Each structure stands twice: as C-alpha cells, then as structure tokens.
C-alpha cells in the first residue's frame, strides 16, 4: 500500500529539530533510517502529518571509545556501521555489540536502519533493546529544554513505547562498562527476520575463568519488553557453570520464569523450548569468550 500524505521537513541540527517537534506537536514523527516507520506508514498503521528527517544530523553519527572503558554510539549510526566497525573502535570488551548486528534484519536493512531508531521503536525482540538492558546502557535524550540520561531499565515502557517525549530526540547510547564475556543468540524462521525468541547473557567472571561473580540474562520475544531472568541469573552465581547440570538448571529456570505469548511465529510452549536451548547456547558462548 501507499502511505498517507504528510509534509516533509529536513532537520539541520538537534536544537532546531527538537524546537520544530515541539511546535508541530503529536502529529509529527522523526524519520531516521525509515526501516520501521516507513513499513508502518505503507500499511497505514502510522499516519503522521509531519515527518522530520534527521538523517542530515551528522553530529549523531559515530562510535567512540572513552578512556574509562565506555563505548558510546551516536543514535544515527547504522547497524551496518557497527557491524563493520574495526576492533580499534568496538574492541574485545564490547564484541557482543558488533556480533549482535548480524542478527538485525538483512544487509539492505542494516545499511539504512539506525541504532537510535531501533531503540526508539522499542520492538521487544530488537537486538539493540536487549543489548541496552543486558549491558546497563544509558540513553542520552535531548529535548528543547535540555538533555537527560535515561538508564535502559527505565527507558522501555511496553509494546513500542518508551520514555521519549514527542519533542525529544535520542542522541546517543552509552555502554558504561567492559563486558567481554557476553553473547547474544536467537532463532528466527528466516535468518534476518525478527527473532521468535532471542537470548543474551553477560557474565562477570573471576580470574579463574569459571567462577561467576555476577550474571545477567535477558530474553526477547517472550513479552512486551526485553525480560530479565533473576532466578536463572542466580543459578549461575551460585554454582560454577562449568560443573555438570548447572547450565541445564539455569536454562530451565529461564524457561519457567517467562509467560510467553502464542502467535503466528510460535506457541507459548515452543517459545519455552526455544528459551531453554538459546539460554544454554548463549551461556556457553559467553563463557568461552
């Protein structure tokens, strides 16, 4: 189908865009890579009267390493730019971020789709949303009245809803700490499509490489938001995951923790089975990092 009529505005800088958004009110939408918004407009699930194209805001493009070990990625950076970033940019400490990109849509989607668009769209299976929760990211948000930092845990409110106001732009995502022992894996019927279930694991390993000081497990595709599994995390911190049966127990705890939906992509039962397999796989990958 074809989208409904709208007026197109081309943004020049962040301040100008946020002021324009305030002026235009609820009828306006930001257009970044368009890989989520344009399909919705083509289906007429979205009919904004104004589109503010922010693709020209080059200040929002880029990947930066801070001396304190934080990784900062500008909101307009494409998935593909992160996927192909040299290891001097996205190093071993954040390898999971780069490696997760091959799961985000297909090449022609990744060349256009942006980090900020994915987070603002807030699909519960989107890899960026999982990564944000997994690695305790801070999201930098700017509006006409100034800037604020929102912890990922407070950013996602539910299906496609976030802490962003209609006159605010997401400008940057900050991963504050190194997370070398982390992995993300998923299952989709066709590689590149949105995952039926995705699982991400991050481990804080002691020097012996086997004792877990802390663990975080996040699932996508099982609820309106990316879901943490505290019971499964506790299993890993209690027993050394290398020892027999611990990973099975952890995977089982994750599968029991969730109350997944049944839909065209899979029944609740099927999602539980996937969860068990994927959590185990992600743990194994994270440990061997």
């Amino acid at each position, binding site marked *: *189908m*074809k*989208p*409904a*009529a*709208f*007026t*197109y505005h*081309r943004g020049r800088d962040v301040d100008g865009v946020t002021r324009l958004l305030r002026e235009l009110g609820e009828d306006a939408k930001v*257009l970044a890579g*368009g*890989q989520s918004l*344009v*399909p919705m*407009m*083509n*289906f007429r699930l979205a009919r904004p009267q104004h*589109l503010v*194209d922010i*693709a020209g805001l080059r200040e929002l493009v880029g990947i930066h390493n801070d001396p304190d070990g934080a990784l900062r990625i500008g909101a307009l950076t494409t998935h*593909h730019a992160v996927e*192909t970033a040299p290891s001097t940019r996205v190093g071993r400490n954040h390898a999971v971020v780069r490696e997760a990109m*091959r799961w985000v*849509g*297909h*090449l*022609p*989607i990744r*060349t*256009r789709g942006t980090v900020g668009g994915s987070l603002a769209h807030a699909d519960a299976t989107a890899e960026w949303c999982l990564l944000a929760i997994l690695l305790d990211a801070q999201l930098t948000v700017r509006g006409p009245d100034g800037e604020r930092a929102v912890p990922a845990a407070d950013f996602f409110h539910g299906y496609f809803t976030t802490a962003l106001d209609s006159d605010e732009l997401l400008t940057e995502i900050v991963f504050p700490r190194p997370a070398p022992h982390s992995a993300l894996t998923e299952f989709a019927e*066709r*590689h*590149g499509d949105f995952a039926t279930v995705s699982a991400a694991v991050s481990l804080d390993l002691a020097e012996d490489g086997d004792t877990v000081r802390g663990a975080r497990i996040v699932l996508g595709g099982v609820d309106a938001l990316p879901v943490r599994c505290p019971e499964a995390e506790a299993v890993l911190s209690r027993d050394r995951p290398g020892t027999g049966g611990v990973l099975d127990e952890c995977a089982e705890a994750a599968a029991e923790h969730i109350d997944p939906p049944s839909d065209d992509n899979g029944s609740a039962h099927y999602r539980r089975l996937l969860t068990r397999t994927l959590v185990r796989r992600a743990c194994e990958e994270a440990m061997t990092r």
Partner: protein
Amino acid sequence: MTASTPPHSTAQYENSQLVSLQVNGETYEVVTEARRTLADVLRQDLGLTGTHLACEHGICGACTVLLDGAPARACLMFAAQAEGSAVRTVESLADGEELSDLQQAFSDHHGLQCGFCTSGFLMLAEGFLAERPEPSRAEIRETVASNLCRCTGYQTIVDAIEDCATKRRAAFQAQLDGESP
C-alpha cells in the same frame, strides 16, 4: 495570465516538493508528493521500471537498489531521502545489449526463472560483492536470505554470485600479474 486556481488541490500542493535525484550517473529534477517512495518515483516518473515493487514493507527485496554503493530497499525510503546520494538501479548494469558479468553469471547458472525477483538480487549481489569480494558460500547464503525468490530455490542464485566473485578475483589477479614487470 491572471492567477486563478492553482494546478493542484491545496493539500496536494502543500505536500509537493522539488526533488533532485542522481540516478545511474544522470541528474533528474522531479516535482512529487512527499509521500512517494523512491521506488515509485524511479518507476513512474523516471520510467526505470527495472526496479520492481511487491510487498512494499521491506520483506521481499524486489525493490533493492544501490544507494552510494550500499544495497537498500527503495520501497522503504521517500524520494526526498535519496537527495544527495548516488542511486544505482539494475538499468546501470548492462552496457547496451551486453550483459554485465554478474548478469551473465545469473544467466549461465539459471539463477532466474520468471525473473521478477532478479533485479533485486542483482543489485543486492552487486553491493555485497563490492564490499566483500571474497565471500564464503555461507556468507552468500546468509546475504541472499534478505530477498525472496519463489521460483529458483536459491541454489542457482548462490552459484551465480559465487562464480561471478571467483571470475572477478581471477580477472583482478591477471591484471596485477600483467602489470608486474
């Protein structure tokens, strides 16, 4: 002439804009409604109907074109978003009646049957090979998963892309060998 009714209804007039596009090396100026996608403008305004359109929501890849060398879905962008970028469509591949090496490989390997999906696969492969001239077969398979083909079963498409990559590398090597003293 006295000013009377504008050429379009007010609503349409408000939403129309002048868009300057660079396509296959030529510059085009088009007056179009903001809501028209790059795919629609390529096909209807510029007459470049090699770019196909099917699902219009990013799933099938029939509309794939190159934007500054990178494959992109022409159904998922408005024409105005392509301003300032070099667009390449399937029409840029052949030289007159002579097929490009990639097109020839598709023909040799029967990488098409009905041909509806072919322009999308060609542009996908052209952009992919430019970035990854030495892809593994697994990488080619993962990449072509982005586009839908209802006829071939994909094996022949993968064969064609792999063969084209091999031949390009051989030609490049021959060129290097010829240059060395």
